[in-house]
């Protein structure tokens, strides 16, 4: 079995993985970080979005062996202690979730989408979140949250 080493939420981790292990399964099963969700498992719904070297990707469609040497951030890595990340706080303030299943992926996609663009438009947000599906159809408040989060992050 190959061995991988990566930085996960700022922490160095390493270990052996089967080659067939998907990144999302490595995160959830091996690292026990269950904030990253599996919705469709077909790279459409975006519940599994994490950051790999700063870019949002669908972790159900990457192999764990592919992140050897990379920096991976999951939803658990956003907050600073008890203090929520500005995007998380914006979702809380704007009621940007109903059941919450899609929320970790939405937040991770949003943080990547708005980086450097504090005045992002509603249209840009709606197009930018194309790869994230909310089955509660709560998009309106999600978009409001992302817009507020962008401002709070300040680009």
């Amino acid at each position, binding site marked *: 079995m*190959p061995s991988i080493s990566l930085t996960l939420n700022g922490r160095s981790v390493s270990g052996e993985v*089967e*080659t*067939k292990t*998907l990144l999302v399964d490595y995160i959830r099963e091996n690292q026990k970080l269950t904030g990253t969700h599996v919705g469709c*498992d*077909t*790279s*459409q719904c*975006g519940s599994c*979005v994490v950051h790999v070297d700063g*870019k*949002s*990707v*669908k972790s159900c*469609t*990457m*192999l764990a*062996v*592919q992140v050897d040497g990379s920096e991976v951030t999951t939803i658990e890595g956003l907050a600073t202690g008890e203090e929520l990340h500005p995007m998380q706080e914006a979702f809380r303030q704007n009621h940007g979730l109903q059941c919450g299943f899609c929320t970790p992926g939405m937040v991770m*996609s949003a943080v*990547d*989408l708005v980086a450097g663009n504090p005045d992002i438009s509603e249209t840009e947000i709606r197009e*930018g979140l*194309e*790869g*994230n599906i909310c089955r509660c159809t709560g998009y309106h408040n999600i978009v409001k949250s992302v817009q507020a989060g962008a401002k709070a992050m300040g680009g």
Partner: protein
Amino acid sequence: MQNFDYHKPNSVDEAVANMQASDDGKFLAGGMTMLPTMKQGLAAPEDLIDLHGIDGIAGVAEGADAIEIGAMTSHSVVASSALIQSDLPALAALAESIGDRQVRARGTLGGSISNNDPAADYPAALVALGATVKTNTREIPAEDFFVEMFETALAEDEIVTSVSFPLVEKAAYAKFPNPASRYAMVGVFVAKNADGVRVAVTGAGPSVFRASAMESALDGDFSSSALDGVAVSADDLNSDIHASPEYRAHLVGVMAKRAVDACG
């Protein structure tokens, strides 16, 4: 998914050697089709050869009257390249229309064309622009590269290294996306240069094709009204749950007009 031996070669030569040493190997580019295919059990390679570690086959470079894009260049890099946005904006817009932000961050030009999905966007651009596909062994004109549904001119151990896109006077791509996947139900790329007009259609048939009747009409009069009455046959077009061949034939006409209008 079954386990496999994972290889991450540092050079094209090493990747080719990995493939030649395997009874049943597959190259892995962005993985946006390869990994779902493996997850569904439709492919179960013994060896997976990841091309991400190879230097020199990603990036955008300006050539003489052409833009050369490395095979491992992601769709997001093509979409946001200042050079492509300025000199070949239709190609940047095409790349921006693929999948979603996360798919564009991983998916690559070389992976897309090597897969030759009948609903992929890039094949239309390559054929309409008269691009040249460069591999580790040769150069292949785009029209000879795309052979059939999911089939290209590539040998088993051949790797696309870059694609050279000639610059043209005008070009535009119009696509009717499947609303769920954003794959092209029909996509039409129109390119105009001194030699004439080329119209390439993806999504409609088993593989990309040129609409020669449309090209002739546009050679005489480069306006969308020149396409009035130029019918596209539904024979041999794709039929699936999303659209009938007749509907796709109709969409080819509509998308071609939109592309011509977008050329300005």
